């Protein structure tokens, strides 16, 4: 009989707090997180603001993202241009709002793709074991062996730059880490008693994966998503900073920093604005990711 004292105290604590409405453990954990973890709640707000800014960009700013006003190039932040203008006289605030569309998309879309690939391969590797497991994991080892920036650069070099290729690169980059985490989670789940109970009932393989393994992997996947989006934004902005990511005329935050880096010492605000907004977005996602991990998925503590 394992040492029950610790677990009992925790469980009593949770039952105390949850009352006993028919709320699922998943929702109960979420509510408790938002009640207790102000940083996580705040970060959700920041993320929503960023999304709204991206969607309603045309409404929020009089200028369009590429109309040049050569008259006052490199002008510091002023009433007309709240964040100043860049080397082409374009309004930085406007470009930030439009850039948000690309940067957030770049953060979200490849991450979703890599989570789907990673979760599928990870679950199959963990559940079936044997050769499939070895093949998938060796493949993952190869991808993980590359330093992320170098791999991204090589893929961009091979495929040529541009938005779609950036999506592909980021998806190819992240699936391996997701697969490894999901595989470990599947192995842990495979040995739990409720999976053995399902096998005793006669639940078939696919149903087992869909009804028991995946729902219990959900918290892990949510945490992985929330922590991989900022990682993707950082990678893309670094790529664009080196001029290997997306190309003008489309604008992303990273590209704006790249454009501004030659004027760092004369007009620092050109780089400062996009740089800071990248940090704010990444921070928000990381805070939310930490909060979600502690609340939903204690097994994966020290990612």
């Amino acid at each position: 009989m394992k040492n029950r004292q610790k677990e009992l105290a925790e469980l009593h604590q949770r039952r105390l707090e949850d009352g006993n409405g028919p709320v699922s453990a998943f929702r109960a954990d979420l509510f408790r997180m938002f009640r207790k973890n102000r940083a996580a709640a705040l970060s959700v707000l920041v993320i929503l603001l960023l999304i709204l800014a991206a969607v309603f960009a045309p409404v929020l700013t009089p200028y369009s993202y590429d109309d040049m006003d050569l008259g006052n190039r490199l002008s510091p932040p002023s009433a007309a241009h709240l964040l100043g203008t860049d080397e082409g006289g374009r309004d930085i605030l406007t470009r930030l709002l439009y850039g948000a569309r690309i940067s957030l998309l770049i953060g979200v879309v490849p991450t979703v793709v890599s989570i789907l690939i990673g979760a599928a391969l990870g679950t199959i590797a963990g559940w079936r074991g044997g050769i499939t497991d070895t093949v998938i994991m060796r493949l993952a080892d190869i991808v993980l062996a590359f330093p992320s920036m170098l791999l991204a650069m090589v893929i961009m070099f091979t495929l040529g730059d541009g938005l779609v290729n950036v999506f592909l690169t980021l998806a190819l980059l992240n699936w391996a880490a997701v697969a490894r985490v999901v595989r470990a989670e599947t192995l842990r789940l495979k040995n739990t008693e409720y999976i053995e109970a399902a096998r005793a009932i006669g639940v078939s393989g696919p149903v087992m994966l869909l009804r028991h393994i995946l729902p219990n992997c959900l918290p892990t996947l949510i945490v992985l998503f929330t922590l991989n989006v900022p990682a993707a934004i950082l990678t893309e902005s670094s790529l664009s900073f080196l001029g290997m990511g997306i190309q003008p005329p489309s604008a992303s935050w990273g590209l704006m920093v790249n454009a501004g880096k030659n004027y760092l010492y004369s007009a620092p605000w050109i780089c400062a604005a996009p740089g800071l907004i990248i940090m704010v977005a990444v921070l928000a996602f990381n805070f939310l990711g930490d909060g979600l991990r502690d609340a939903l998925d204690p097994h994966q503590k020290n990612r």
Partner: protein
Amino acid sequence: MEQNTLEISHLTVSFPTDRGGFRPVNDVSLTVRKGQIVGLVGESGCGKSMTARAVMGLIRSPGKVTGGQILLEGKDLLALNGKEMRSLRGNELAMVFQDPMTSLNPVVPVGKQVEEAILLHRRVSREEARKRTLEAFRNVGISEAEKRSRSYPHELSGGLRQRVMIAMAMVCCPRLLIADEPTTALDVIMEAQILQLMRQMRDRGTSILFISHNLGVIAQLCDYTCVMYAGRIAEQGDTRELFERPVHPYTRGLLGAVSSLDRKGEELETIRGSVPAPGSLPAGCPFGPRCGLCDETCRGACPEPREISPGHIVRCFHAGEVPV
């Protein structure tokens, strides 16, 4: 009169939570005389472990002792500062824990962990500490002490690890040994060996506060027993008298449940309802809702301890009565 080894009076431990908080230990008083084994028995969550941890000063935040007195041979432990308390722990006051699998540091050989206990309290050379460790191992019946002392915890069986824990606790000849369910994680044969060891230590003059949920172990080992329920001592008395003439309905329920196991074929005796969650205790006597004798007085206030015969104390308005 011989000085009592341990006197706990009106000890209370409380845990603040955002819903007002709760008291796992609530106004507990008990005494352990020299060379006596006192049993603290009760179901999970009744506060027996918390009482033991309070004596050792090992209560984890946010819990803290909010009342009462703990005298170790006349010295009030609650009045001591950190340093003074530390000089007692492992020296005059020692503790053994429940799960031998996790109570030893996994990356340090077991011999070293026992030497540490000696070097903390005795100014002796490392060599001397090694010698005493091996001797302590032999005293608790560990064969091949030399080889075992060099191995790591994961290389020893549960029984051996528990013996190492006892050797570690006894190495500075403490006045009082607190054993928090030391045999719960062991098999019945290993348990019997550990209980035998405890009797030998008692005969050599060590007083023991023994915590368990197993009434069989309590009956075989303890001279005096306290039955705890929802943070309070429901009934305490000499073990023989308590088992033969229990007066508190809860003690009766427990003993009835255990002894009915020996009566073949009949339906087992149970206690209706279940242990109240720590935060939501019923008004008045905590055992009220599950008790056959419960009436207005019981629901009104929580009964105070009453001594119905020398050493036999009970917290119940209807002690001894039989449900009609």
